């Protein structure tokens, strides 16, 4: 067989030579070679898999509509100073109100999430207020303008470029100078020395520029009184913490008059039972029910128009007592006559005179900015007489002083109407809404050739201008602010501008030098130059400027030496102009600052709209507060409408019967009724500026009413607390009878600290006692210090990502705030005594909510926290029913989606949320957690550092915000901790302790510093 040449195909047969050789090789070339890794493909198995994975990922991303391209930067190159999961704090300045507090901005992964006071700032000392706390929302407000936009006065509509704005503004400015037309800058008081210099330079660059400075709440009457009395309008701030006696005359020093954060801290600090048994004594003589009045030891109800005769009578009585020859004062009734006519308790007035005399030099009489100049002159004289001027500190800096006199404002508006003004720039002000309607600013604006409004959210003025120019919010801006002599607070951006916005100073700078192109650094460099040339040399620091600058930015505040002050010389001839006015038997309207919205500026901030009014607990509205007797006289009740008219105009307002309001008085807040404030803030409440007379630009804000009458219809106000008639014996004084509020008299407490009747007893229990070992959390709240200002509520809202739910939901009783301030009245409807009490989850040891939850979604932690597990919660609401304190909050809707068509679900609001706190979904129960995220963070730090966690470092958000430092939090098992002292204090008590729920929040009883006579 082998010999035969067999073939299988023709090809094989023809190629016979090679075939046998091929056939002899069973395997292909190389297959039988020895294995040599060198010869392999350089692509390893790992690399191959990586390539496969990468191509799969590329293919996958290529198929998605991934619109965020290039915006998310993974930290493969970690930015300096940013550690994911770790917060960075930057010092800056809050410009939400003219107090310009120093703040620390907490940023997470580059985005600001929380604002708190800067502890190094000498005025606010680490504390803040509700408006400041909620200001974080302004940065992330979806309604913010994202690019320059045309207003009603422009020819086209739509967005425009900054280049076009710049060139057109330059052209218009040049045209004004050429045609001899005026250029007007409208601005709020400029607290920044650098910005002030810039405005001066702008004026120099464009001669004929008029700067109109106005502020609704700028203490103008006080300043003009100082001008009359002392020859200078520069006020001298009161050293409140030194005062032993404060007499506030229609002055809400704990609410929204002056430096409230500082004042609250001072008053509260002088009522600290843990430190001293001597308290400051606070008198409040007022017609409207204010926070100061409710926190006063004595409150006298007096119509604001009677303040002058009251102060004069007081002065005469004091002078008589001191046997001083008083200067000649206008004749008027004496205290007894006033007490008789106005229904004031004469005994209290006698005490007041005694106290003023006894504590002379250590007391202060302080009149509110709503009162007219005459009252302030008389008060200055009274303080002078008593030597109370010793409490005055150095005069306020020049930045605080200047506002334009009303007559100049009026004449400028007349010029605008006459077409003499060619250019108006509004620097973050809203005069169309603010100015008295009789001035006709909106019409005047129409006669101006070119107008711009620099604003972050469209407003009433911007709407009517040629262009709206979006500006940075305070967290994107540079600046320096001086509101107290010797203190300059620095402001630095903590986030890159979110949109195509510019800092307003930079806009002006750009217009001043048309040749320089715009850069984000424009104003920063200007500021730095100013500091280098004007501020730094005067400080005499040994470092170089850049080091100083870095340190100043780090600290956020620079203190400068204060030169010695010339002693005040009182000019007695100022008294000659005092005139007691006859007041006819008519209503007067007192126009108040809104508790939280400022002059209406923060109307679009839902958190602030939803903060309950500190006294009435009304949300999302302003109203006419009248006394119960006035309501009877007018034949109205709460929620009825009344029409109020003054010489300038009329408005229709819902009535709220507010116990404690003076007769013949209507108190109403300004700052509401904005018609173009954004989706949240538009048309909330009633605009009462039509009531303002033309001259009433900055005060006094007590306006005589022409008529007050019941109007048809009604309007439902929403409040977070159900209102019970005070004179309803059925429910009267329940808070005292039920020992929810414990009150006593300081003098009796001093004699016997156990006189408050607080007994502590261990109750019998059928369930075994749970022993807690290690750290156990507890909170104490000092009711002497708490003023009820709501800063804690706002702070909690921000820290814990609480939603805004809207008026209609609050009216249904579904408010979401985890901490609330309960307000109780006792006494008569005319002269009520009010008590405030912060109420939050009590983290009971025997928590009634825990045993009724069928799914154990709420349970107890080993460190004594009552916890909520949102994922497990099915929402039976049984826990809320069984909570004696009713502090649990339920997500009846997805509230973010429910409010205003999901307004707070729009971008970029989600960036604001605290990443450490879950955003709760619909159908889930929630409540105060004692800021467990902060506890865990501190615990983690202790673990990392390898030390025993003793709980000393933890501060809750409410505690941190509280300007009164009324909240103490800590480990109750630490005998050295403050909390332990508070818990064991004789005035310490728990609410509803007899239920044996063992709450872990205790309160210190409120002690009223009144004279020994029993409370009536």
């Amino acid at each position, binding site marked *: 067989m082998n010999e035969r040449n067999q073939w299988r195909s023709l090809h094989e047969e023809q190629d016979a030579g090679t075939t046998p050789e091929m056939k002899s090789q069973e395997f292909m070339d190389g297959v039988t070679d020895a294995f040599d890794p060198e010869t392999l493909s350089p692509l390893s198995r790992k690399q191959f898999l990586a390539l496969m994975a990468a191509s799969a990922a590329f293919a996958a991303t290529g198929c998605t509509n991934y619109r965020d391209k290039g915006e998310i930067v993974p930290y493969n190159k970690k930015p300096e100073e940013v550690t994911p999961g770790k917060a960075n704090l930057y010092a800056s300045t809050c410009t939400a109100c003219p107090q310009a507090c120093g703040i620390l901005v907490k940023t997470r992964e580059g985005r600001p999430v929380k604002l708190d006071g800067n502890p190094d700032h000498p005025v606010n000392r680490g504390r803040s207020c509700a408006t400041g706390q909620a200001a974080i929302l302004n940065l992330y407000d979806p309604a913010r303008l994202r690019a320059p936009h045309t207003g009603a006065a422009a020819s086209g509509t739509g967005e425009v470029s900054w280049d076009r704005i710049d060139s057109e503004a330059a052209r218009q400015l040049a045209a004004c100078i050429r045609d001899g037309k005026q250029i007007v800058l409208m601005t709020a008081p400029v607290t920044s020395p650098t910005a002030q210099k810039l405005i001066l330079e702008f004026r120099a660059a464009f001669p004929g520029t008029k700067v109109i400075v106005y502020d609704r709440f700028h203490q103008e009457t006080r300043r003009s009184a100082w001008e009359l009395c002392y020859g200078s309008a520069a006020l001298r701030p009161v050293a409140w913490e030194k005062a032993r006696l404060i007499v506030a005359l229609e002055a809400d020093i704990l609410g929204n008059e002056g430096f409230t954060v500082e004042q609250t801290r001072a008053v509260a600090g002088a009522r600290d039972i843990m430190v001293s048994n001597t308290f400051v004594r606070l008198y409040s003589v007022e017609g409207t029910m204010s926070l100061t009045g409710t926190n006063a030891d004595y409150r006298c109800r007096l119509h604001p128009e009677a303040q002058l005769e009251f102060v004069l009578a007081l002065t005469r009585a004091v002078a008589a007592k001191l046997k001083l020859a008083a200067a000649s004062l206008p004749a008027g009734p004496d205290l007894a006559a006033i007490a008789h006519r106005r229904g004031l308790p004469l005994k209290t007035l006698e005490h007041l005179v005694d106290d003023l005399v006894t504590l002379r030099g250590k007391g202060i009489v302080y009149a509110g900015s709503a009162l007219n100049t005459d009252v302030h002159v008389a008060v200055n004289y009274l303080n002078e007489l008593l030597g109370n001027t010793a409490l005055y500190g150095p005069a306020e800096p020049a930045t605080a002083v200047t506002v334009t006199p009303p007559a100049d404002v009026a004449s400028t508006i007349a010029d605008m109407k006459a077409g003499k003004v060619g250019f108006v720039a509004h620097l973050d002000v809203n005069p169309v809404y603010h100015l008295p309607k009789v001035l006709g600013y909106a019409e005047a604006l129409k006669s101006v050739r070119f107008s711009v409004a620099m604003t972050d959210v469209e407003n009433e003025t911007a709407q009517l201008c040629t262009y709206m120019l979006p500006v940075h919010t305070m967290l994107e801006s540079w600046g320096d602010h001086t509101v107290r002599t010797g203190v300059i607070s620095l402001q630095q951006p903590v986030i890159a501008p979110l949109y195509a916005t510019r800092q307003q100073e930079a806009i002006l700078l750009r217009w001043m030098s048309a040749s320089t192109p715009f850069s984000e650094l424009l104003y920063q460099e200007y500021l730095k130059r100013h500091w280098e040339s004007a501020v730094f040399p005067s400080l005499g620091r040994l470092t170089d400027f850049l080091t100083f600058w870095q340190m100043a930015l780090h600290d956020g505040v620079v203190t400068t030496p204060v030169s010695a002050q010339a002693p005040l010389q009182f000019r007695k001839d100022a008294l000659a102009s005092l005139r007691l006015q006859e007041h006819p038997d008519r209503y007067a309207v007192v126009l108040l600052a809104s508790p939280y919205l400022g002059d209406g500026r923060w109307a679009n901030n839902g958190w602030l709209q939803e903060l309950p009014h500190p006294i009435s607990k009304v949300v999302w509205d302003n109203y006419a507060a009248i006394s119960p007797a006035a309501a009877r006289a007018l034949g109205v009740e709460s929620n009825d409408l009344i029409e109020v008219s003054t010489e300038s105009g009329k408005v229709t307002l819902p009535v709220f019967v507010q116990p404690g309001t003076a007769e013949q008085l209507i108190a109403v807040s300004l700052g509401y009724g904005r018609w173009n404030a954004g989706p949240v803030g538009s048309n909330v409440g009633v605009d009462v500026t039509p009531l303002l007379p033309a001259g009433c630009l900055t005060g006094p804000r007590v306006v005589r009413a022409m008529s007050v009458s019941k109007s048809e219809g009604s309007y439902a106000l929403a409040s977070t*607390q*159900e209102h*019970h008639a005070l004179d309803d014996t*059925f*429910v009267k004084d*329940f*808070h005292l*009878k*039920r020992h*929810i509020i414990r009150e006593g008299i300081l003098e009796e407490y001093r004699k016997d600290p156990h006189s408050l009747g607080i007994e502590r007893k261990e109750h019998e229990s059928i369930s075994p006692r749970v022993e807690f070992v290690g750290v156990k959390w507890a909170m104490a709240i000092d009711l002497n210090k708490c003023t009820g200002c709501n800063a804690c509520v706002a702070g909690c809202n921000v820290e814990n990502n609480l939603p805004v739910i809207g008026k209609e*939901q609050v009216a*249904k*009783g*579904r*408010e979401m705030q985890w901490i*609330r301030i*309960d*307000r*109780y009245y006792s006494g008569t409807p005319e002269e009520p005594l009010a008590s405030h*009490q912060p*109420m939050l989850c009590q983290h009971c040891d025997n928590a*009634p909510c825990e*045993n*009724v*939850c*069928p*799914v*154990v979604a709420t349970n107890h932690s080993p460190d004594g926290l009552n916890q909520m597990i949102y994922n*497990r*919660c*099915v*929402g*039976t*609401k*049984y826990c*809320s*029913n*069984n909570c*004696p*304190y*009713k502090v649990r*909050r*339920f*997500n*009846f*809707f*997805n509230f973010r989606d*429910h409010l205003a068509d999901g307004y707070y679900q729009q971008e970029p609001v989600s960036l604001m949320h605290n990443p450490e706190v879950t955003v709760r*979904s*619909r*159908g*889930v*129960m929630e409540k105060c957690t004692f800021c467990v995220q902060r506890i865990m963070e501190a615990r983690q730090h202790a673990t990392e550092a390898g030390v025993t966690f003793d709980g000393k470092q933890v501060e809750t958000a409410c505690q941190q915000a509280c300007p009164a430092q009324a909240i103490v939090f800590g480990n109750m098992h630490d005998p050295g901790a403050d909390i332990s002292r508070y818990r064991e204090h004789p005035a310490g008590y728990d*609410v*509803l302790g007899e*239920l044996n*729920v063992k709450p872990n929040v205790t309160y210190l009883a409120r002690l009223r510093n009144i004279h020994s006579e029993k409370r009536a």
Partner: protein
Amino acid sequence: MSTAVVDYTREEPVVAGRPTASEIDAVVSAPLDRPPARTWWIAFGITSTMLGIGVVCVAVTLWLGLGVWGVNQPVSWGFDIVNFVFWVGIGHAGTLISAILFLLRQRWRNGIARFAEAMTIFAVMCAGIFPLLHTGRPWLSLYLTPYPNQHALWVNFTSPLLWDVFAVSTYFTVSAVFWYLGLVPDFATLRDRTTHPVKKLVYSIFSLGWRHSSRHWTHFERAYLILAGFATPLVLSVHTIVSFDFAVSVIPGWHTTIFPPYFVAGAVFSGFAMVQNSLIVVRQVFRLKHLITLSTLEKMNKVMIVTGSMVGYAYAMEFFVAWYSGSQFETFVFVNRALGPYAWAYWTMVTCNVVFPQLFWFKKVRTSIPMMFVIAIFVNVGMWFERFVIVVTSLSRDFLPSSWGHYMPSIYDVGIFVGSLGLFFTLILLFVRVLPVISLAEIKAVIPGAQPERHRPH
């Protein structure tokens, strides 16, 4: 004046006249054999429309959230739990009649047991809607059952809500089994009677091969007795546990030891009223007056006056204990009920539950169909308000006056309640068309002469 002497040694006949067994079969199964009348269609149209309203309201609730209801922060339970307790209460009469009265050998129950049991099942179905819906996230209701899972999560056995889950589901299961067991011989009778092939098949399946043999009857009687014994404690336990939802809490007005007996008495009270209301209509429409006699109805009225008086006593005792306890919270809650913002609801409750049933002391009222019908309606209204008063007034004003609130139901609350009524009556209407409303087997046992009787010498 009638001078007839009542012979108390003799039991009153439960069934009037002397109908034969076949006559009973014919009259009871008659509605099953003929197409529904016009009036039935009208009634069905009304009830199914009500049901439809309820379905829409439930859908809206599920889509948007509990916020569409009237519940709020102090009053987190409103119509939902009021209706739940109301329906569970309605369901009580059925088991009481079928089990307890069976054990007590109350022969008059035989005519009404079937219907009452059916009502029980339908009422518990209606009740079951509410605990499910009232949770914020009903799709997670599974969490309420103790199922093993990798998270080692377990339910909380100290929560009365969990006891509710078990109590109500057990009650429903036992009632349904008991009901079906009683139906087995009747299915066999229907199977034997019908000529329709489909019906024959269906009845054959459900009759489980029943052949009326003595052995079947022996087993049946024994099983029925055991189930009756099993169901009896449930009558007491279910509403006791429902009352624990309130009694175990700390809320004044809820935290009361009187609740278990008070709730059970109330439940029987309302259940009898509802059975009586429905039966009056059924016996009229289906010409069953001789099987469900006036005397039976009168006996039910007597139960109502007893339970109504118990409820009235509980109302009074609550006030007494509130005062006697010296607890200011307790005292206030009861004063507030009578004089506070919900006083209208309280006095509606007292009038309907305590005052009107007292009219049953008069035999004339007790035996007058229109009067008893109206009073029973009042009782149903009153018992609904009782639950409203307990749930809402206690929550609306509890410990801290600062968090007191007011509850106002929304249209969705009302809609879902209407829907539950629609579901209940729709099921009743379907029931009377497809199943014998009177137990054929049981009623035959109480017709005169059915049982061996010792001949009484004259």
